[in-house]
């Protein structure tokens, strides 16, 4: 299945901004994190299709995963 992965802030350093990846069925967010070399505790905001998710969320075809380190403002 194809999943779009979007990285933000420091997660982009040495990686990418947005990439479409082919993943095995039943892949979880945690599998993507492992492949990217990001520890789950480094992730402050994890969204799948704009909704809150976590490392145990099982991804589906066409999902967009957005990952942010701790950031904020206003």
């Amino acid at each position, binding site marked *: 299945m194809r999943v779009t992965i979007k990285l933000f802030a*420091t997660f982009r350093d040495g990686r990418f901004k947005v990439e479409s990846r082919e993943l095995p069925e039943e892949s979880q967010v945690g599998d993507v994190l492992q492949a990217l070399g990001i520890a789950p505790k480094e992730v402050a905001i994890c969204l799948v299709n*704009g909704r809150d998710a976590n490392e145990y969320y099982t991804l589906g075809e066409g999902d967009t995963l957005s990952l*942010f380190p*701790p*950031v*904020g403002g*206003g």
Partner: protein
Amino acid sequence: MGGYTGKILRINLTDKTIKTEALNMELAKKYLSGRGLAGKMFTDEVPADVEPFAPENKLFISTGALTGTNAPTSGRFMVVTKSPLNSTLASSNSGGHWGPQLKFAGYDMLVLEGASATPVYISINDDQVEIKDADHVWGKDVYETSAILKQEFGDDQAKVLTIGPAGENLSYMAAVMNDLYRAAGRNGVGAVMGSKKVKGIIVRGTGKVENADPEGMKTVLSGVMKKIRENGVTGQGLPSYGSAILVNIINENGIYPVNNFQGSYDPDADKISGETMTEKYLVKKHPCYRCPIACGRYCKWDEGEGGGPEYETVWVFGSDCGIHDYDAIHQANDLCNKYGLDTISVGGTIAAGMELVQRGLIKPEELGGTPLEFGNAAGMVEWVRKIAFAEGLGAKMTLGSYRFAENYGLPELSMSVKKQELPAYDPRGVQGQGLAYATSNRGGCHVRGYMISPEILGLPEKLDRFSIEGKAAWVKIFQDLTGVIDSIGLCLFSSFALGLSDYTQLVNAVTGFNYSDEELLKCGERVWNIERLHNLRVGYTKADDSLPKRLLKDPVEDGPSKGQVFRLEELLPEYYSVRGWSEEGIPTPEYLNALNM
């Protein structure tokens, strides 16, 4: 006593008298300082029905008890007056270095009364205070004025607070600027200063602000500095990217308003994100006084350089106007700094104008040759200038989006609350923030209860942004805590890392007042209620605790918040109840008694 200098400087512009008086410490214990004490004094001294531009209106420039101390982020001050934009008890906050300098000169607060017949500026050099002629700087922009006043003062350490042409022209969106790029932006406070014909206030102080418990303060400081350093937002996110880091976060959550809140997701948002700013435009950080966070930016773009822009500014001149040209956003921000305008209200008014054009309500001949359409960056920048100088249609826009859209029979196209333009979060997808908008005492505003923190950023804990459960209580606590932070002179951004007990420890070490957490939070609750009581006196009712029709009735059409509307009717009664107010949103005498008000 520490923190407070114990002195107020009161200047009457009509008869040109300058007096100092003792700060009422009994009131300060109940209302702290900054927004709280100035608000209380305003309501005690000024009739609620005063005309905002009448000499009888007063302008309080009020530091906090911690302003100018060694507490982190202690550079803040408040401008408090009756707002010309919406008659609320305006309290417009700014960082920079001006506030601490006023404290070093020996004053907690400066009160401007009456009105001068001719332009003047005020020069404060410790206890030497003079009212000086300002004919030569009247009409000049913020940058030129600041340079001239500094030169005349002859001390590079002096700090300048000034209005620009927008304040002189009495724009309801005029800001009071300091340190060139820092704005007490909201509620049109710059126009009140302009109505008094006060162009600026330059201040130099050589004193120190003492702490009541210097040894205790060392321990407290070491703890709070560690928290700020180790918190991901204050220690890393904000320092690295500035507040514009929010562009992508808010957009990915589908609460990022596009084209005057017609949409809530922008596929091109990354073109104007904090990451892009850092990569292409950032020259250096531009921190306020004693700020370890240093979120302030200094950028260079195709035709200039200067301070900012902040997240709200990037959004409003960007996606809310359908624009992804970062150079144009920098230009619009620079013009607002230069001419002394509030970016949120100016951008919101331009965006409302763009929708009026989109709907064919503004005729082409009204535009004077300047395009006013979503996506037209050059036109957007020119409208900022026209608003500053009240040129052509800009003269109508200078009174804000509500009155502007009302001219065309569609005030609901103004994305505002109590006539003040909304910031950069679509409340349909973030219910607590919507309630904070609807109930904000100064009208459309995100910094009177920043529910984005728990609902989106997960600080101090993650809440479900679509849920209404428990949100009324969260909003109340956030509003009251913000009342504390705004009244002690610290930056709201410190609260990403610090909690109530940290503020209590800081306040106690500085002032020696020995508050409990509960007592300190009560001070914030009084601040909230004093503003509410003013609003009720000027005629606001429950019906005004609301949002534009679009956000109540039209579900979000696309993106992650698809299908959502703001659930006002369910949230508002619970909020009034949690606040201890009547069903009509009126604080009862018993409740006010219990608050010792």
